[in-house]
């Protein structure tokens, strides 16, 4: 019964949308990479560097939106590294991705310790504040959930539409999807698979970093260690769950976030007190694995995902 009470509160849905926002950015970023044929396991570390660099820029006096830009650039830089190693050189996407994750998070932690050597509690910035959308925010339940959020959340939802339109309604999107399905056909059109894939990885990594920046600049107001906490890996599961389609993947992120918000609230009920809190914290990871299992039969994996392309080779 408590579940129904929770489901009918506006704060629950607002929390679900808030939790989904960073996942939407990063999931869309990963989706763009994979649609072009590159698995980007750098996602976890790129989210860390995004969370750190955006926050640090604002802490040093930059405006919030400039901080988002800094985070995006930092993500794109690591994306460039990933793309260079995996696309023209065709190195193992698993190994490079894990290496980039390690490098990006170590660089973030190193820079954090270097710039703030003595702090015990991390300093705070003034994060993005919720902006009420007049009229729409008055709708019961849905209003406060979707229309009283920070600008970054609105941006996340706008991006779902933008990525869908670009992927399915533009020549660029067609070329990008072809690079992930049948790279030889792209070359036959006189386009460069290398350029398309590198571009996709760089842009996708930028989005992942903005997802990370959401954590320090919208959800919380400071940077701390382990704050990304596997969200990147969850986003990889969400891409599979969404069958490599932006709308479905975003819906998956929302559904996932709703479960996450629900488990936090269930912990505070009498029922929740009977179960160890660690069980609740496991829920997101278990859900991700379940999502992968459920979709395993139906998933339409991009045919050339993880297949390096070398011009002139058959």
């Amino acid at each position, binding site marked *: 019964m408590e579940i129904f009470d929770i489901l009918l509160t506006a704060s629950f849905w607002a929390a679900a949308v808030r939790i989904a926002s960073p996942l939407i950015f990063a999931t869309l970023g990963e989706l763009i990479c994979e649609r072009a044929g590159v698995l980007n396991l750098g996602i976890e570390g790129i989210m860390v560097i995004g969370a750190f660099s955006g926050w640090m820029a604002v802490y040093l006096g930059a405006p919030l939106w400039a901080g988002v830009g800094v985070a995006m650039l930092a993500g794109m830089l690591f994306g460039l590294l990933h793309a260079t190693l995996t696309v023209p050189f065709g190195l193992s996407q698993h190994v490079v991705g894990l290496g980039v994750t390690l490098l990006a998070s170590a660089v973030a*932690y190193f820079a954090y310790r270097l710039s703030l050597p003595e702090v015990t509690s991390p300093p705070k910035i003034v994060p993005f504040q919720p902006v009420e959308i007049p009229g729409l925010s008055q709708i019961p339940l849905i209003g406060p959930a979707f229309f009283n959020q920070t600008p970054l959340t609105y941006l996340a939802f706008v991006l779902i539409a933008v990525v869908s339109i670009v992927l399915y309604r533009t020549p660029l999107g067609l070329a990008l999807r072809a690079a992930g399905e049948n790279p030889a056909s792209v070359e036959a059109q006189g386009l460069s698979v290398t350029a398309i894939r590198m571009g996709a990885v760089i842009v996708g990594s930028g989005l992942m970093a903005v997802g990370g920046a959401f954590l320090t600049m919208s959800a919380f107001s400071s940077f701390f260690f382990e704050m990304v906490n596997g969200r990147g890996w969850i986003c990889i599961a969400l891409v599979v769950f969404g069958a490599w389609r932006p709308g479905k993947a975003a819906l998956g992120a929302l559904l996932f976030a709703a479960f996450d918000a629900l488990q936090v609230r269930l912990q505070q009920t009498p029922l929740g007190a009977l179960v160890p809190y*660690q069980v609740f914290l*496991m829920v997101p990871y278990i859900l991700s694995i379940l999502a992968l299992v459920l979709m395993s039969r139906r998933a339409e994996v991009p045919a050339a995902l993880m297949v390096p392309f070398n011009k002139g080779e058959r």
Partner: protein
Amino acid sequence: MRLEPIPNPSALRSIGLPAGALVLTVIVASALALLAGANPFATLGLILKGAAGSKFALLETLNRATPLIFTGLAIAVAFRAKLWNIGAEAQLYAGAIVTALLGTGILPLPSALLIPVIALAAMLAGALILLGPVLLKTRLGVDEVVTTLLFNFIMLLFVSYLLEGPMKDPMGMGWPKSPALEKAARLPRIVDGLRLHWGFALALLSAVAVWVIQTRTTLGYEIRAVGLNAEAARFAGIPVGRVMVKTALLSGGLAALAGFSEVAGLKGNLTLDLSPGFGYTGIIVAMLALLNPLGVVVSAIFVAGVFVGADSMSRAAGVPTYIADILMATALLTMVLALKLTRTRIRWR
């Protein structure tokens, strides 16, 4: 640009390029030291001194290398079959849990029997942890990278639950740790008075055993065949699914031994900070060793040395210890690139 294979790379190429990767790593280290306002030569010297400058330092490095040999072997075995086991961390903790459970006096056995029993039980636990993701891969085609990664988070939460609940040490003053192992379950020191336990010897033995399996047995041959080309292996009549499962059992068991050796040899109980990412670092160890089991020993000692050295350098020179992680990531990425370039040349056209 286009890549062309080189059939017979020159000696200059096959030695020069990997050496170049290491030089690049050292250059990155120097740049980071400069950035932190320290003298690069002094910083590198302090890392070297902290890793191998004294008997104490060297033993500390070998102690740190012990779990890395186990996890490095676990990764080397799995990656050879293109089984992407990123969950060595979870398997390590599975081994550690079993060791902490069985080592506190519930098995009335003499030490010479108790220790092998615990080690085998730990291996079994680690193997079972990896079995789940591997069966999902072979039966349903679920990508094992994500499932094994997610298992790491689930396992850490499970350990946290155990340490605050059923396995909590009543004498622990509220600290989340398990009760101390009985003396019979502890791995003794190799030499009295020196802080190096038999776990290190077991790690060396495991490396040799894995080398024998890989080079002298049918399973080793099958693992390589599956890794090189699973389709061709299936066509040649190799039961790919079964080879994957065997690989997983071996890999998970080896990673679990890292947990066993840390609990029974070094710490004496289970805590949440038992492993500072040994499971992940094992990937670097294995890749730097080119997945060669004997090479894993060398690269584990090297990697452990960098971490131990960076710890002591950080205390002295004030450069953050994360320099070690940056160096390891740089070494990994430059090394895989260097190895690729020994076998291929770039044609700009």
